């Protein structure tokens, strides 16, 4: 670090102010941010473990950590406590013990199969399946929320990997130009023509794709988009006078790229992020829908969508997924539009 006191560029502050003033985008940003943060703490919202239990004057917080066997709470079994039943028991006893259950007291992997009924069950407030259950009796709301967490993490992970690779190669192409640029241009053109979906089908027929496997495969064939943009920006930036003056001072290539060119391209990279996020979510959902994504029983929107498609009479499955996807993609797109507008260089350039 060069400066000990970090000074935020007033232009950056201005951009944030502009972003904030674009109401639709800003509120969408708050919505999506809440959704992401909430999904990171999904265990407190959606879980078959209680948030807190008071038993014989002692408090228990079973959410994180090891499972607590039923005997802890004076039950007869050694396996994990069924907190829903415990709550009913304590409520009936009325002796000062209580159980605080999460909003949705179901685990995304848990099959809730009441007697005499075949899943999927329609939404029911009484059983606390607010969006109903899927064909195996798993709570849809729970699967949506955990599925969202996986999708957003996947998306951000993919974004990280593709941007690091794309920005590095792209800026190197733009900076050094010449034969290096020419070589990579042709490589990228060839590489872009590899049919990704077939590659994934082939790979997932050999190995069961895990989370990181999928990111690796998707990144391997998805880094090219960023290179074109970075190549063009770098070409433009490197001939600007501030870069020439750094070279005239004797700055190394490393210094010029990392201290001068990259910081000046950040605002352009940032505008791509929301669109990449929604792209990542869509891609994972599509792969899961086709059955080439994450292996079951991972909670996934694509898998739910596929179930819904197969059971259209259970309208709540398809309805819930489509609603969730619509909300997510619309908010992310609104954020993207607002970012693009707030960071528009034309808004901040003074022509003389």
């Amino acid at each position, binding site marked *: 670090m*060069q*400066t000990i*006191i970090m*000074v935020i*560029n*007033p*232009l950056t502050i201005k951009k944030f102010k502009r972003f904030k003033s674009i109401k639709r985008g800003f509120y969408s940003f708050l919505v999506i941010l809440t959704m992401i943060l909430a999904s990171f703490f999904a265990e407190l919202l959606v879980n078959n473990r209680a948030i807190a239990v008071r038993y014989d004057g002692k408090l228990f917080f079973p959410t994180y950590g090891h499972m607590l066997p039923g005997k802890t709470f004076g039950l007869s079994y050694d396996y994990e406590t069924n907190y829903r039943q415990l709550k009913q028991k304590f409520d009936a006893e009325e002796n000062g013990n209580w159980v605080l259950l999460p909003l949705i007291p179901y685990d995304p992997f848990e099959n809730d199969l009441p007697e005499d009924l075949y899943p999927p069950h329609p939404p029911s407030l009484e059983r606390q399946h607010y969006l109903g259950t899927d064909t195996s009796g798993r709570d849809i709301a729970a699967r949506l929320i955990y599925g969202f967490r996986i999708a957003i993490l996947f998306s951000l992970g993919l974004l990280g990997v593709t941007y690091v690779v794309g920005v590095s190669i792209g800026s190197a192409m733009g900076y050094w130009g010449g034969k290096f640029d*020419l070589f990579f241009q042709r490589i990228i053109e060839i590489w872009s023509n590899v049919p990704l979906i077939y590659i994934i089908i082939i790979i997932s027929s050999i190995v069961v794709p895990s989370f990181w496997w999928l990111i690796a495969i998707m990144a391997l064939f998805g880094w090219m988009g960023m290179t074109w943009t970075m190549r063009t920006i770098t070409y433009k930036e490197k001939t*600007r*006078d*501030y870069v*020439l*003056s*750094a*070279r*005239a*001072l*004797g*700055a*190394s290539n490393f*210094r010029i790229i990392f201290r*001068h060119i990259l*910081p*000046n391209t950040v605002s352009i990279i940032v505008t791509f992020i929301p669109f990449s996020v929604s792209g990542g979510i869509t891609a994972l959902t599509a792969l899961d829908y086709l059955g080439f994504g994450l292996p079951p029983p991972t909670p996934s929107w694509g898998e739910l969508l596929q179930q819904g498609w197969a059971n259209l009479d259970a309208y709540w499955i398809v309805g819930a997924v489509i609603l969730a996807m619509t909300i997510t993609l619309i908010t992310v797109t609104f954020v993207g539009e607002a970012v693009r507008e707030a960071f528009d260089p034309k808004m901040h350039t*003074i022509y*003389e």
Partner: protein
Amino acid sequence: MKVENKALSPLLTVKNLKMHFPVRGGVFRRLRAKVFAVDDVSFSVPHGKTLGLVGESGCGKTTVGRCILKLYKPTAGKVVFNDRNVLSLQHEALRESRKDMQIIFQDPFESLNARHTIQEILEEPFIIHKIGNKNQRVARVRELLDRVGLPRNSLMRFPHEFSGGQRQRIGIARAIALHPKLIICDEPVSALDVSIQSQVLNLMLELQETLGLTYLFIAHDLAVVKHISDRIAVMYLGKIVEMSDADSIYEKPFHPYTRALISAIPIPDPFRKADKIVLRGDVPSPINPPPGCHFHTRCPYALDRCRVEPPGLKDAPGTSGEQHLVACIRAGEI
């Protein structure tokens, strides 16, 4: 400063400098054509003096400046600085030599990194050349701000918070940070208001005196150059067409192009009748410069000889010893 000791050999000598930019196209980037941006230019600048390089846009004057700094790699020619050929320097030696040669750019909006504070911009020369520790560097930066007449509280501010003239002062401060011997001034005042121009020019003259700087002053405006230069070279389409001491070029210009440029200087006298020489046509493309004298397409005095025979840069009639050089075969008669 031991300027006097070396007064005899010039600080900077440019010999037969050529810069031909390739124009490439197609899938394999084949060579399609060449832009003759600088075509056989020679001059020298003595210690502590200023050479003004004048010409209209696109004549190659900026390219000359950038070739000297090795920001471009010239096609041919020699740049001798301090008795060393700059163009053959590599890596560390080149980096060392950068300390002695600096540049001030035309556009102060472009030449400062908008994402850096003034402190970061002015500290950079010291960081690159590993001079001093953090505190010493900040002290040097403060000193620089004083020297160019900027308030000390500018340190934590960003370039866009300053006016054009102030930014150009920042550019000058960065250029003098490492105590260079030569500064290439690439139209340093062209982008500024006229009222600010003189302030910046005076600052540059003052710095030249106190720091013993040598300037290569590039401009498209003869009036500005007159104020600051000891010697002036006029460029047209990649070649120097006339070079002389500042006074004599204004008093007795030989080349028709120089005359046209001088007649274009506005005279602040409303009653004086303007008898401007207006040149017809445009500057030919440097991709395909005309044969013979490059200026013949627009020259009112051109003969058939001018269209075939390239005029060399020779002593003007009535002068000797390279005091006044002109590239026109009719220099004496017109």
